[in-house]
């Protein structure tokens, strides 16, 4: 039985406005469905369902209604939108879409939500610490927060994340509780992973095998933050996994499962073959799913310096707005754009309205391949970042 504090009851009874009431109804109902005993404060929220391409008019109407009197009570940031909020015109986004996308952003801004528009909020000012309770929605960020940082969040939907923001609480169930964060299957990786695409492929293999069971991964001797971002995105896309443990890399908080599965180079090669369409004609190259870090952008800018993107190919490097601003200051933006590639902020190739614009995507991201195929009907090829950039230029 869910017990509410007086303050929470007041919200539920509508004494703090309509939007807060609706938000508290969402929180308490989910709590009842999942058998929570109480609500707990969250220190940050990350909301998904921002691109107008996914939300459509119904989603926008809901957000506008909530924005009438709803206000964020804790630090709240947004998932990528369907376009770069400033440079959308040069990326071929139509004006109708841009207007509607801006209405979505305005509704969030009215509620006091930070319009960061990124799937990597932890890189740009929304970084919880170990053990902190948060309510995040973006599946890759949820996985990163639970696993790499050791913060605690369920995989929220758009409305339930917004509800947590407007009330400052979430129901205590699922991954907020110790007993649900224990590893269930051990995966021993018997091959060396070098680049972000390798980690994406590993996420795909483990995600497909483990489904919802929390994996404990051994055999990884080294991983960069970008590698872990790629792995988090992929394992969450191809499985229902919202958390993993990686020996000597993520915080040691679990017992080690006895059941072991081996992952070989052949498993990774098979995963790579599955994402490589033989008849793909590559006219779109995109890096930045999850959003590229400043280190990746620096590397790509140096690769593109003095080069020229081939005719008939479009290159998107997608990232968060603050990272783009830094890239401008560092001269990376100029190097990338002078080569004819685009440094796109606020958006990504999975949520922008790209259907019908391209036929074949090359990327280093296993997650991007999934959405390119499913949502946009593109053929795909997965390569290292370096190979992607080499494919792009003359």
């Amino acid at each position, binding site marked *: 039985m869910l017990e509410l504090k007086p303050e929470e009851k007041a919200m539920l009874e509508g004494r703090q406005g309509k939007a807060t009431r609706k938000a508290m109804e*969402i929180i308490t109902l*989910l709590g009842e469905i999942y058998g929570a005993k109480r609500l707990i404060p969250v220190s940050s929220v990350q909301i998904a*369902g921002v691109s107008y391409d996914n939300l459509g008019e*119904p989603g926008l109407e809901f957000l506008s209604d909530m924005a009438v009197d709803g206000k964020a009570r804790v630090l709240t940031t947004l998932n990528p939108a369907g376009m770069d909020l400033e440079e959308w015109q040069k990326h071929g986004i139509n004006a109708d879409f841009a207007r509607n996308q801006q209405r979505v952003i305005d509704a969030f801004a009215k509620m006091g939500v930070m319009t960061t528009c990124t799937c990597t909020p932890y890189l740009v000012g929304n970084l919880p610490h170990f053990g902190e309770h948060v309510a995040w929605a973006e599946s890759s960020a949820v996985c990163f927060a639970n696993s790499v940082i050791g913060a605690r969040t369920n995989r929220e939907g758009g409305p339930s994340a917004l509800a947590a923001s407007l009330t400052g609480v979430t129901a205590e169930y699922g991954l907020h509780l110790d007993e649900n964060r224990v590893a269930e299957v051990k995966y021993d990786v018997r091959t060396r992973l070098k680049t972000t695409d390798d980690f994406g492929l590993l996420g795909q293999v483990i995600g497909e095998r483990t489904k919802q069971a929390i994996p404990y991964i051994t055999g990884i001797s080294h991983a960069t933050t970008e590698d872990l971002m790629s792995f988090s995105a992929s394992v969450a896309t191809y499985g229902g996994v919202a958390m993993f443990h990686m020996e000597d890399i993520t915080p040691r908080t679990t017992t080690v499962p006895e059941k072991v599965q081996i992952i070989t180079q052949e498993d990774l090669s098979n995963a790579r073959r599955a994402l490589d369409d033989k008849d793909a004609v590559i006219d779109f190259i995109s890096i930045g799913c999850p959003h590229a870090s400043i280190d990746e952008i620096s590397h790509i800018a140096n690769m593109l310096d003095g080069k020229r993107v081939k005719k008939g190919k479009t290159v998107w490097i997608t990232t968060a707005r603050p990272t783009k601003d830094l890239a401008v200051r560092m001269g990376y933006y100029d190097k990338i754009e002078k080569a004819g590639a685009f440094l796109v902020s606020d958006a990504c190739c999975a949520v922008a309205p790209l259907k019908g614009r391209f036929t074949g995507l090359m990327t280093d991201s296993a997650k991007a391949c999934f959405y390119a195929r499913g949502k946009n009907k593109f053929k795909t090829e997965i390569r290292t970042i370096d190979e992607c950039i080499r494919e792009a230029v003359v």
Partner: protein
Amino acid sequence: MKLQGRKVFRGKVAGEALVTTQDISFYGGCDPQTGQIVEKGHELEGKSVAGKVLVFPTGKGSTVGSYILYALRKNGKAPLAIVNKIVDPVVAVGCIISEIPAVDQVQIDRLHSGQKVEVDADHGAVSTSG
């Protein structure tokens, strides 16, 4: 006949049941303009959920489904009530934001399409007259 379940979202309504043994994905599976089920091969394909007491085991598919229920409500095509065997978060949230009375943990195999049913969501009850 009275079936006892659990309240998901408040409200008391009476209307005609539309029953399926198959799960429903509102996102991609139901047209928010017409209320018609459009999922290929679904038992209810071509039928409209508008104004019906919609009875199905549970929801499936994308979380955007919550917003489709909201759109149905705005377009006047929402179900009168929803009765589930077990509610999933997407439908639950959809019912709350759209204010659709809903009950779950109901033995839905006792219900059939065309029946007149009363849903008293506040008490988690579904009853038929006949």
